[in-house]
């Protein structure tokens, strides 16, 4: 019977090589609508408070996704019919201007009003940003003006470009995704606005932005299978693909082209021209 045991041992061991399986169980969990977000401002009023949330610790130059909740003290509930609108304003020493921003909607979660603002510049002691918020509460129209501070991105990476195109139009291009880049083909997303006036920043549709990621620290190594960003009307953003072959510092060289294929900003990367004047930077 000893022999039998040896055979058993051998076969059991060999069986373990092939009998691996994965068990996946997806159990739904109740989700806090602002989980993972930081409350960066709270505006107290007599009968309600306005809470402003961001993924970041504070507002930064570039694309900022912002969530707003309004709590009615009387009912101790978050309001679902506030229909808020907002307007960011930069108060410079000599002039004032707004910033590209979306509408606020509560379609995902009816107590949370979401939208985004693209801040073109940071605030400082003399030049500051204000957010003017209009909303209705129990049938009454309210307005709050909140002075917010906007800093340069903590990682120092350039993810927002404000530039004059070859068509003499001023554009604002801001990086949206991937928020957490991976060594993979990432979904690349950006927003493009043009500056019609100090107060008007319409979305630019149907342009194209070419994508050429490079690693200056690795002899300008590039990656394959990137896709140029094109306009998606559903999201009102530009979507493309960004391949990153390793972690580290990447410069995403870009070229903006209008609907006729004319280059408005940016250059091809070649041996002689290692970088485009239009780019995003990222580090991970």
């Amino acid at each position, binding site marked *: *019977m*000893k*022999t*039998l045991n*040896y*055979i*058993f*041992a*051998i*076969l059991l*061991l*060999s*069986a373990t*090589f*092939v*009998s691996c399986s994965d068990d996946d169980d997806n159990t739904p969990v109740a989700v806090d609508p602002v989980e993972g977000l930081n409350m960066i401002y709270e505006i107290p009023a007599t009968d309600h408070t306005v809470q402003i949330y961001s993924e970041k610790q504070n507002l930064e130059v570039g694309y900022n996704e912002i969530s707003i909740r309004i709590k009615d003290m009387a009912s101790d509930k978050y309001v679902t019919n506030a229909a808020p609108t907002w307007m960011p304003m930069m108060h410079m020493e000599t002039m004032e201007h707004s910033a590209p921003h979306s509408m606020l909607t509560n379609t995902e979660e009816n107590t949370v009003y979401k939208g985004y603002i693209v801040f073109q510049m940071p605030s400082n002691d003399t030049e500051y940003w204000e957010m003017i918020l209009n909303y209705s509460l129990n049938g009454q129209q309210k307005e709050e003006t909140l002075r917010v501070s906007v800093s340069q991105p903590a990682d120092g990476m350039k993810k927002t470009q404000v530039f004059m195109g070859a068509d003499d139009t001023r554009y604002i291009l801001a990086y949206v995704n991937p928020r957490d880049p*991976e*060594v*993979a*083909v990432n979904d690349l997303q950006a927003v493009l606005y043009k500056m019609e006036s100090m107060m008007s920043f319409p979305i630019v549709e149907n342009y194209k932005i070419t994508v050429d990621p490079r*690693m200056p*620290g*690795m*002899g*300008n*190594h*590039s*990656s*394959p*299978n990137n896709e140029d960003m094109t306009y998606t009307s559903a999201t009102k953003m530009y979507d493309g693909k960004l*391949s*990153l*072959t*390793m*972690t*580290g*510092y990447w410069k995403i060289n870009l070229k903006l082209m209008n609907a006729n294929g004319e280059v408005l900003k940016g250059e091809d990367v070649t041996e002689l021209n290692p970088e485009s004047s239009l780019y995003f930077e990222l*580090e*991970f």
Partner: protein
Amino acid sequence: MKAFISVFPLKGILMGSLSCALFCGSFMAQLYAQETPADSLKLIHLNEVIVISAGKQLDHQKQRKPLSTLDEFLESSLSVNMVKRGAYAWEPTMNDMASERLAVTIDGMQIFGACTDKMDPITSYVDVSNLAEAEIGSGQQGAMFGSTIGGGINLKLQKSNFKPTGWTGSLESAYESNNKMRVFGGELNYSDEKFYFNLDGIYRKADNYKAGGDKEVLFSQFEKYNFSINSGYKLADGKSISATLIYDKANDVGYPALTMDVSLARAVIGSVGFNQDTLFGNFTNWESKLYYNDIKHTMDDTKRPDVPIHMDMPGWSETAGFYTQANLNKEKNHFFFKMDGFYNKSYAEMTMYPTNSNEPLMFMLTWPDVRTKDVGFYAEDHIPFEKASLKLSARLAYHSNTVADDFGLNSLKIFYPEMDKTNTRFLKSFSAQYHKMLNDFHINGGLSYGERAPSVSEGYGFYLFNSFDNHDYIGDPDLNTESSADANLSVTYKKPIFEITAGANYFHVFNYIIGVVDPTLSTMTIGADGVKFYTNLDYARLFNATLSGRYNISNAFKLTGSVSYHRGVDDAGKNLPLISPLSYRSALDFYKNQYSASLSVDGAGEQINYNPAYGETKTAAYAILSASFGKRFFLQDNDLFLKAGVENIFDTNYSSYTDWNNIPRMGRNLYLTISYSIN
């Protein structure tokens, strides 16, 4: 053949063999005590056996350089050539095919190197001190050791095997002048009919070697230890268990042909075995083994000046496996059956340190934790006829690769967005080998077919830099199974004092895997010329021919010689890389009254057929002359051997086609070996 849906699923095979073992096992208790049948007929194999066992007195005299590295021993084989990236860890090639097309095992154990750049062929993890011999099977004659195209090499460990020799031991030392290599080794053995153990260790340390003309080859130093213990215990008559442990560690290994060196190459290799003379009455020599090995390999460029970017490249390879084999002798048929399996985990990463230290580290997985499962069944049948014999063999294997690391999977999906995590294939091999004796002529001929799965690098490598052709390589998980149809023929004319053999083989390899440039891709390695994808060519053809002879001039003098021709072309008729030019060697050996001496010449013709696309340049013709002298002394019951020699007597500066980046080979080298054996 990829993504083959196995009609005979693996679990079925296992269940089948389990129930078979259960069923048969219950009979065994009564049956195993039967007598062992007489040794099966000695059949002539094409297989070559190289005797290594450095410490064994009888073999010692026959060897020109007893404590040379295993690499040098293997290179002395007619069918093996060694690709050299420096003085250490040469990569064996057979029939002009390297690691991924060969099945190389240590005592039947599958071991896979942990270096993405093939700096650690598994032959580098053992040493001559613990090996008895290398069994070499060309083409499908090597399929017993695993799925292969070019052949198989099995390095057999030295074991006392219950011989009643009692305590024995030996001490060895050697010195080589050229690279100041110091070798110290020793072994201690005990063996009786019930129990044995073999304990041995060896230490080698070498400085940079000097090529002909006293030109130092920088970064060619190395240091290595190897310890091993083997033991066996007889449970009952005809039934024993055995265990083996090998620990091998190399530090500070220079690779002059590469941009990086190795700070650590470490292997722990262990196995337990069970042997029984008979099984179910009819089967004999039943041998089973369970094994595990763990390899760590760390590349290091911190000692190199002027590297554009510093990088760390550690790699790990772990393998667990088993085999069980037995013979079955019938009147007309001599069967051999073997079932084997392994599970390997290969993981390698690369971290690069940017020149601007404020930037984050650059990290990639060069081997994305690939899990390879392989279960195979091998059977052969020797059928003797009158003055002839036929050997039929077949191997069927289930082989699968899975990328276990998501980071690595996503990395590869940059190139292959649709790739699957797992790739399964079924590998087949068949061969028929016929041997006929006509008076003094022996005629050997065979036809065979074999398949192999792509290696981890070929399937899943991610920006692996190959300094030979200066390209980055990227694997392709969707590669087709490579297969080969081959034919071999050899004729030997044999007289007691004279023997001459002419042999040739031809491989038609379908779906030949090789790197092909993709000009659209950007290099990762700074200074590389381009990026290659591993790709299936429609086919490649390889032809090898050898003429060898032996002449016993007298009892004391023996003359041997061989000349070989090799040719390899791809489907467009272009030369394949690393194909040997015409090469030759000849030796005159003398042995009488405990004196031995030899004079040998090795050389090669100009490499006419080379391919610059694979980084090759024309290698010039060369010939080198070497000599050795030995003497055996008897000191009471003990033996003392002295052997001295000089290699490359004329200090020729040369490199062979196998020398990576044409790094010149060693110049004149004097060596002295002392071996003291206590019987």
